[in-house]
């Protein structure tokens, strides 16, 4: 699967991400906001939309929405709730309270690890719907024998984050969702669980010939419940649109349903789609005008966000912010260890490499690791000072991650100690003396033989030599001995 799209075409993507907010209670009533409870137990007259009930806005939900807005560099503004009217049994009132032309957050951006800034058009508040289960008829409401509705989710607070059509290809779309998820989790606004529906992604896809700037007709794809299905759906849909266009036909603007099983997108029936939402201002709520003090307080309390963390790690380690190692370490929340090494005056670049490779690997195997920062920094220092060879340091690190302890003790227990430079020099002298013919060839310019000598050093020291240092000694000795006389 290509990450950039079909040959000669550019894939243009805008994403709409629905994020369930981690509030204690629902958006307009006091019912618990909990996933997985017995159906229809977390309900009251308000979230059931009973006649006479009225919504009251949850302050905590606004707080989280403001955090999202500021984390995405949006303008926070006085906003208005609207009613989005359509009939569906998962909506108790047959309208959804959402925001329309004046969202709480507008015009921001999200910086991807690659350094690219993706525009955020808006991040508005709205209420979630209930959940329907259609029994019979292939899971569609119009063919179903009967449908079951659970209103526990009805009224759960959402923020819908709408990106500009700035993404190019499936890989970038995926990168965006991962980065956005990291920001949402960091702010405490979301638990980021796509599998529980806490994050739901809809995708607008269009294609255009490479080199052109006009946007093509887009289709909205729904029903992708993992990053993998997002990538697959985008790739499929882009290829489909290219095929439509190259055959001389036109792409029809429509909503398409991703089918995980057959790996295709399907047009939804127009009956289910042709809505005129008849938006109008929700008369039961007043204008939401967060004070400047509130917005400032929210901003001040924001944690350091991934982009800034990448920048810090990059600066400390000398790596590029967009490098794989930097983004891996930040994604895995290991960047504090780089910074600990840096502030202790240890080699932060070395720390970064060890974290991005060995520790990340251990994390992938074990699911979680705990690593004492002081011990880790000490280990980095030992390797940096040549007390341990890189191979030895990796072994100690493995032990440190698995059982913990002090690196020096671990090294002692395992009998790991790098030879001192004097000792290493005499070992090198010894192997040169023992192999005069090979030395002659090496000195004569046959560089392949460096491996031969390094192997001998390794064998002679039982692996306790810094082989890179040994290589340097060998090369140094050759240049001192001058050009070959033969």
């Amino acid at each position, binding site marked *: 699967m290509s990450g950039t799209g079909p040959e000669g075409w550019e894939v243009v993507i805008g994403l709409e991400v629905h994020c369930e907010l981690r509030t204690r209670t629902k958006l307009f009533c006091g019912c618990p906001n909990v996933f997985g409870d017995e159906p229809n137990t977390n309900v009251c007259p308000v979230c059931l939309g009973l*006649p006479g009930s009225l919504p*009251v806005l949850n302050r905590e939900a606004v707080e989280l929405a403001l955090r999202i807005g500021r984390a995405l560099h949006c303008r926070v503004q006085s906003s208005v709730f609207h009613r989005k009217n359509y009939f569906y049994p998962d909506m108790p009132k047959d309208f959804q309270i959402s925001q329309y032309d004046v969202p709480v957050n507008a015009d921001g951006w999200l910086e991807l690890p690659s350094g690219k800034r993706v525009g955020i058009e808006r991040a508005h508040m709205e209420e979630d719907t209930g959940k329907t289960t259609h029994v019979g008829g292939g899971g569609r409401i119009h063919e179903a024998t009967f449908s079951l509705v659970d209103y526990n989710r009805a009224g759960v607070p959402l923020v819908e984050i709408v990106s500009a059509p700035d993404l190019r290809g499936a890989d970038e779309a995926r990168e965006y969702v991962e980065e956005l998820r990291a920001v949402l989790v960091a702010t405490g606004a979301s638990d980021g669980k796509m599998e529980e529906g806490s994050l739901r992604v809809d995708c607008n896809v269009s294609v255009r010939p490479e080199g052109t700037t006009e946007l093509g007709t887009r289709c909205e794809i729904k029903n992708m419940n993992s990053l993998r299905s997002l990538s697959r759906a985008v790739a499929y849909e882009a290829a489909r649109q290219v095929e439509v266009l190259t055959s001389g036909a036109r792409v029809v603007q429509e909503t398409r349903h991703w089918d995980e099983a057959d790996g295709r997108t399907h047009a939804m029936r127009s009956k289910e789609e042709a809505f005129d939402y008849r938006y109008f201002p929700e008369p039961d709520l007043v204008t939401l005008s967060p004070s400047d003090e509130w917005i400032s307080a929210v901003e001040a309390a924001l944690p350091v966000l991934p982009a800034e963390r990448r920048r810090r790690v990059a600066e400390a380690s000398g790596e590029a912010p967009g490098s794989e190692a930097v983004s891996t370490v930040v994604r895995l929340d290991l960047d504090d260890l780089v910074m600990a090494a840096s502030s202790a005056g240890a080699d932060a670049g070395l720390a970064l490499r060890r974290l991005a490779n060995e520790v990340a690997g251990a994390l992938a195997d074990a699911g979680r690791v705990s690593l004492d920062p002081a011990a880790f920094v000490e280990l980095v220092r030992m390797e940096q000072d040549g007390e341990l060879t890189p191979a030895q340091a990796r072994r100690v690190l493995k032990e440190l991650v698995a059982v913990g302890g002090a690196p020096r003790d671990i090294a002692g227990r395992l009998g790991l100690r790098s030879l001192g430079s004097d000792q290493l020099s005499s070992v090198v002298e010894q192997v040169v003396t023992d192999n005069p013919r090979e030395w002659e060839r090496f000195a004569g310019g046959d560089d392949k033989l460096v491996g031969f000598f390094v192997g001998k050093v390794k064998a002679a020291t039982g692996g306790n030599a810094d082989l890179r240092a040994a290589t340097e000694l060998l090369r140094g000795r050759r240049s001192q001995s001058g050009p070959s006389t033969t």
Partner: protein
Amino acid sequence: MTGPVEAIARAVRQGEVRAVEVLAEHLGRIARTEPDVHAFNLVTSDVAGRQAEEVDRAVAEGRDPGPLAGVPVALKDLLCTRGVPTTCSSRVLEGWVPPYDATVVTRLAEAGAVFVGKTNMDEFAMGSSTEHSAFGPTRNPHDLSRVPGGSSGGSAAAVAAGFAAASLGSDTGGSIRQPAALCGVVGAKPTYGLVSRYGLVAFASSLDQIGPFALTVADAAMVLDVISGHDERDSTSLPGAQPSASSRLGRGVAGLRVGVIAELVGADGMAPDVAARVEEAAAALSAAGARVEPVSVPSVRYGLSAYYMIAPAEASSNLARYDGVRYGLRKPGADITEMYTATRSAGFGAEVKRRVMLGTYALSAGYYDAYYGKAQRVRTLIIRDFEDAYRSYDVLLSPTAPTTAFELGAKTADPLTMYLNDVCTIPSNLAGHPAVSVPFGRGTDGLPIGVQVLAPALGEPVMFQVAEALEAAAPTGGAA
């Protein structure tokens, strides 16, 4: 003027009469006359009996039984009452029993009121005659061949017939004041946000307000004081404490500035006897020391048109939930769309359907700006015109309704004629201002006429002050 609310509460609190006796007297009247009037969808004798006994127990034990101790009150059947059916006079809510009380219901109950029943109304409060009820019309106690007005016709008739000392209605475009005028009682629509709407089944949320009916101005103010005040369950409820509606009663009107709205006195279809009574009322206030002048509030002429965009638009959304999925009526269909259609076709009456269609159209893509958007701009204009007027006047005066009570069936064939009933009352709803209708003599047909006192936002104290003066000056009986 002391009314039955004040009189009953005082007597019950002082132990001069028991609440159960007061209740029995009212239930007796209901038993005798209710079959003719049909003010109620449901008479709640059991609930009332328990409440009256509790009041009597409190009095006997020396506890405070509340300011409305033992006062029989009727509730419009769109106020949610826990465990008691609430129908909005619609088939679509068949079988639904609210699991909670409206805030006003809780406040009245805590004040010691005794709930005698749920009153008939135009379906979902849409109408001006109580003829658009799924359960048959209410008749005017003054003349059973006439309508009581609407939509709170049952609540107005219940007070006029002596079934209750006071009642609650809701007023979206005049639904308290117009029936009050036609039934010869006092009916007040408070400032928007003064009374919580929590538990009031919505018709048009930005216009709906709950208010009292009573026989006297003082009684109406007293009931309003009990039900008003901030409620955290209604986001549009005004914060903070407001002055008592009764705070300026008994002060007379000397020195007050009163403007008589020229556009409403001269409105199309205004009956000469009604206009004459308004002039008399103005003269009476003048005689009592007020400075009374005609005033122009030009944009009120557009109120009716704006209202019939805004109210149906909001209603089309508010009434969407009656779909047969969760409660009330369900008519089966082959699929969900058919079930919706069958349920709503069978559940709603013609007037509700008309307004839902009108409102749906007004909000449709491409029409929003021309209809709903423009109507909202008219609303802003009306508010501005009222603000201008209130720079020069403390209160404004107008007729409440263009005619006295009309015959049943006289206007049901022509919705537009029916809508014209609300021409004088609608502007206050659009502005969110308070207004009260006070009985002021009778028409050439011998039926009651109401005069409307309008006040700026939170002007209830001065509004009732002027209303009390009109009440005192009102001609007793006889034609104009």
